[in-house]
C-alpha cells in the first residue's frame, strides 16, 4: 500500500514540475530571442554618409514581421514556403536582412492575430496594419517616426508617387505633427471605377441595341428574364445580380450612381457642407422604387437576401442564369472571363454608369483608399529598414523586366508571390497606366517602354487575340473597351464623383458606422421586397441622423473646414 501511495505522489509531483518547466522554458526562449536581436542590432549602425536606398546591412540583421495574406488565392511552387521564398531570399542576399515571421495566417485570422499582438504588446518589428489598427498604434505611441529615413533613403519611385495627387492626401494621413508614421499601401480614384457588365452574346442573340441609358439596361434586364436568352427552353434566367451584401453602402453603388445617388460617400450639398450621399432621399428613392418594381417582376432573384456571392451567385453566373452584373473593374478577370474557357460563345462587355435622365452619370469613387499601412514599432533600432525593404519591392516589381516580374509578382501559372512580400508598395493608378501602355503596344506593336508587369499583361492579351481563351478575362480588364478603358471616359469627362472625406475615421464613425450601414441594409431590403413603402426612406434618413449620423456629419465637416 505504501509503495503504491509513494508512486502516486511521485507522479503527481512530476506532473506539477513538468507544467512549471514548460512555462519557464517558453519564457527563456523568448528572452533568448530578444537578446539575440538586440545584440546583432547594436553592431550595425551605419554612418549617414555610407547609407543609401539599397545599401545592405553588414553584418546581417534580423527583422521580425508577420504574414497576414496567406489566403487560398495565394499559390506558390513546391520549393517556396512562406518562410523561405523569393522575397525572403532577396532581402537576405540584397539587403543583409533576415526576415523572421512571428506568425503566418490568412487575411481574416491575420487581422485578429494583429489585434492580439497589439493588445498583448507583442509587436513584430515591422508590420502591415489596417486603418483602425494604425490609429490605435499611433495614439498609443507604439510606432517609430520614419520621416528621416524616408527623406534620406526612399527611392525616387516612392517619393514621386507620394507627391502626386492621391499621394499627397496619403502623406497627410500618415503624418502627425511633422512626423511620419507609415509608408502607406494605397489606391486612388481610378482603382475604384464602376462598370456595368452585360452578357454580350445574349444581347446579340435577342437583337437588342447596345445600352445608352439606364432605361436601356433595364429593358435588357427584362428581356434577359423573359426571353430565355440561354436558349434552354426553360424560364430559369433573370436579369441582374443581387445578393445579401448588395445593400451595403457600396454593394450596388454602380446602380445607384445611374440615378445620381451616391450612397456611402461624402458629397457637397447646395450650401457647400458635406453630407453623406445616402441621406439624399430625392435621388435614392427613385432608384429603390425601380428596384422594387424589378423585384416584383422577377428581374431580381426573389431570394436575393440570402444569396451568397461566392457560392450561389457564382453558380448562377456559370450556369447561364443571369446576365448583368453591376460592379467595378475586376469582375471581368474573375469570374466572368473564366466562363469563356468552358464555352467559347460566352461574351461579356463592360459599360460605364449610364444615366437615368439627360444628365451624364458620374461614378462614385474614393479619393484615396488605403489597403494597408507599413509601419515599424517604436523601440526597433533600425526604423529605416522599412524604407529599404520598400525600395527593394519597387526594384523587383516596377523597375525590372517581365521575367523578374513573373518571379516576384505573378506569372501565367497562377503563382502570385507578391502576396508574400511583407513591405509592399505600389503606385496608385497603376492599373490606369498599365491599360494605356499595353493597349498602345497592342495597336502599335512597340513594346520597348513597357516594364515587367506591363510586358506580362501585353503578352497575355496577345495570346487571347491569337486564340487562347483562358486569357479572355485579362483582355476584358485591360484591353480595348475594357473595364480599365472606362477610366479614360470618367477622367476626360470629369465623371468621377469623388469622396470629399479622406481623413482618419472619426470617433463617431468608429462607433456608429456599422450600425448605420446595417440600418441602410434593413430599410433598403424592406423597400425592395415591398414590405415598406418607398416613402419610408424619409424615416430612414431621420433615424440615420438620430442614431449617430448627425455626430458623424458634424465631425466630417469639422475636418473639412480644418484642411481648407
Amino acid at each position, binding site marked *: 500500500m505504501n509503495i503504491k501511495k509513494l508512486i502516486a505522489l511521485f507522479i503527481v509531483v512530476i506532473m506539477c514540475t513538468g507544467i512549471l518547466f514548460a512555462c519557464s522554458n517558453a519564457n527563456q526562449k523568448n528572452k533568448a530571442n530578444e537578446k539575440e536581436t538586440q545584440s546583432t542590432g547594436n553592431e550595425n549602425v551605419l554612418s549617414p554618409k555610407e547609407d543609401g536606398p539599397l545599401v545592405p546591412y553588414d553584418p546581417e540583421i534580423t527583422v521580425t514581421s508577420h504574414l497576414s495574406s496567406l489566403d487560398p488565392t495565394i499559390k506558390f511552387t513546391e520549393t517556396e514556403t512562406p518562410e523561405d521564398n523569393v522575397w525572403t531570399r532577396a532581402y537576405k542576399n540584397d539587403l543583409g536582412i533576415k526576415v523572421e515571421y512571428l506568425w503566418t495566417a490568412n487575411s481574416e485570422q491575420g487581422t485578429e492575430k494583429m489585434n492580439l499582438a497589439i493588445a498583448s504588446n507583442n509587436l513584430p518589428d515591422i508590420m502591415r496594419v489596417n486603418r483602425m489598427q494604425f490609429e490605435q498604434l499611433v495614439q498609443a505611441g507604439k510606432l517609430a517616426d520614419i520621416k528621416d529615413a524616408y527623406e534620406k533613403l526612399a527611392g525616387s519611385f516612392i517619393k514621386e508617387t507620394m507627391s502626386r495627387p492621391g499621394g499627397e492626401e496619403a502623406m497627410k494621413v500618415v503624418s502627425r505633427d511633422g512626423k511620419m508614421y507609415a509608408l502607406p499601401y494605397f489606391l486612388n480614384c481610378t482603382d475604384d471605377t464602376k462598370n456595368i457588365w452585360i452578357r454580350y452574346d445574349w444581347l446579340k442573340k435577342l437583337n437588342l441595341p447596345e445600352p445608352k441609358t439606364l432605361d436601356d439596361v433595364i429593358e435588357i434586364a427584362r428581356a434577359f428574364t423573359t426571353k430565355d436568352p440561354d436558349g434552354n427552353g426553360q424560364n430559369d434566367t433573370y436579369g441582374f445580380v443581387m445578393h445579401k451584401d448588395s445593400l451595403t453602402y457600396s454593394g450596388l453603388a454602380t446602380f445607384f450612381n445611374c440615378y445620381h445617388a451616391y450612397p456611402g460617400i461624402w458629397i457637397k450639398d447646395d450650401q457647400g457642407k458635406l453630407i453623406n450621399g445616402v441621406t439624399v432621399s430625392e435621388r435614392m428613392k427613385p432608384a429603390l422604387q425601380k428596384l422594387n418594381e424589378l423585384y416584383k417582376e422577377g428581374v431580381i432573384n426573389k431570394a436575393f437576401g440570402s444569396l451568397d456571392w461566392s457560392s450561389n451567385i457564382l453558380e448562377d453566373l456559370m450556369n447561364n442564369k443571369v446576365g448583368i452584373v453591376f460592379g467595378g473593374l475586376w469582375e471581368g478577370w474573375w469570374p466572368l472571363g473564366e466562363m469563356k474557357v468552358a464555352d467559347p460563345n460566352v461574351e461579356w462587355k463592360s459599360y460605364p454608369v449610364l444615366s437615368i435622365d439627360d444628365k451624364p452619370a458620374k461614378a462614385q469613387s474614393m479619393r484615396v483608399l488605403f489597403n494597408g499601412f507599413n509601419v515599424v514599432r517604436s523601440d526597433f533600432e533600425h526604423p529605416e529598414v522599412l524604407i529599404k525593404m520598400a525600395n527593394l519591392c519597387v526594384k523587383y516589381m516596377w523597375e525590372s523586366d517581365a521575367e523578374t516580374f513573373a518571379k516576384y509578382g505573378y506569372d501565367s501559372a497562377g503563382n502570385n508571390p507578391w502576396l508574400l512580400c511583407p513591405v509592399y508598395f505600389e503606385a496608385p493608378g497603376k492599373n490606369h497606366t498599365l491599360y494605356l501602355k499595353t493597349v498602345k503596344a497592342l495597336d502599335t506593336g512597340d513594346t520597348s517602354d513597357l516594364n515587367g508587369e506591363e510586358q506580362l499583361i501585353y503578352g497575355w492579351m496577345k495570346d487571347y487575340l491569337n486564340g487562347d481563351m483562358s486569357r479572355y478575362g485579362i483582355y476584358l480588364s485591360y484591353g480595348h473597351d475594357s473595364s480599365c478603358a472606362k477610366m479614360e471616359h470618367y477622367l476626360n469627362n470629369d465623371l468621377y464623383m469623388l469622396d470629399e472625406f479622406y481623413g482618419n475615421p472619426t470617433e463617431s464613425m468608429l462607433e456608429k458606422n456599422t450600425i448605420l450601414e446595417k440600418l441602410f441594409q434593413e430599410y433598403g431590403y424592406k423597400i425592395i421586397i415591398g414590405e415598406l413603402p418607398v416613402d419610408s426612406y424619409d424615416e430612414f434618413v431621420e*433615424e440615420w441622423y438620430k442614431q449617430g449620423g448627425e455626430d458623424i456629419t458634424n465631425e466630417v465637416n469639422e475636418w473639412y473646414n480644418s484642411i481648407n
Partner: protein
Amino acid sequence: MALHVKTHNNDVLKRQIVLHLMLIPAVIIVAIYSYGPLFGVVIAFQKYIPAKGIIGSEWVGLENFVQMFTMRDSVQIIWNTFYISILKVIANLLFPIILALLLHEIPKQFFRRTVQTILYVPYFLSWVILGGVIKSFLAPDGFVNRFLLGLLGIEPILFLGDKNIFVPTLIVTDLWQNAGFNTIVFLAAITNVNPELYEAATVDGANRWKLVWNVTIPGMLPIIILVATLSLGNIMNAGFDQIFNLYSPPVYETGDIIDTYAGWVY
C-alpha cells in the same frame, strides 16, 4: 447508510492528502483561466482601447450601458435573445425525453444502438460545417424545397430568408444537432428504473401508456430536474455560432441576438 465513525482529523487528512494534491493543478488552472479573467468585466466601464490595455484605458462609468440601451435595436435584440434561448431550452428538454422514451421501446439492441449513434453524430459537427450543409438543404432550390414542390406542389419556402420562419428553423436545426446528447442521458436514466416497478404496475392492470406516465417518467424525474437545472445556465445563450452562420439581412429583425449584434457595434 454507513455508520459515521468519528475519526481524528489527522487520519482523515492523511487519507485524503493525495486526493487534494491531485486536485491542485486543476484548481490552479481554473482559478487562473476561468476566475481570473472575470476581473476583466471592468472593461464594461471603460473606453477600452486594446493597445492601451486595461490600465491605460479611460474610465467612463455607465456611458457604455447608456449607449447600448438607447440604441434603436436594443429592445428587439434583447427580446430575440430571450425568446430564442428559452424556446431552445424547452425544446432541448422536451424532445429528447420523448426520443428517449421512444428509443426505449425498441426491442432490438442493435437497431437501438445504431439509431442512437446516428442521432449523436451531428453534436460533434461545428456550425461552420452544419451552416453550409443547412444553407444548401434549405435553399430555395435546395433538397427540402424541391421535395415540397415536387411531391406536394408547395411554393418554395424561404426557411432562412423569411424572418417569421427563421426562428422555428433555428430551433429545429438546433434540436437536430443537440437532441442526441440529452437523449442518451435520459436513456440511461430510463434503464435505471427498477424493472420490478414495471412488473408490479402491469400486474395492477396498467397499459403501455400508463406504464410510461406512471413508472418511467417519475423514475426519470431526478435526472430530468438535473438536466433542466443545468440547461437553465443557457438562458441567455441563444447560440451565436448557429445564428452567425445562418443569418442574412432578411432575418436580422428576428434573428439578431446580443452576441451577433455586438459584432456590428464594435
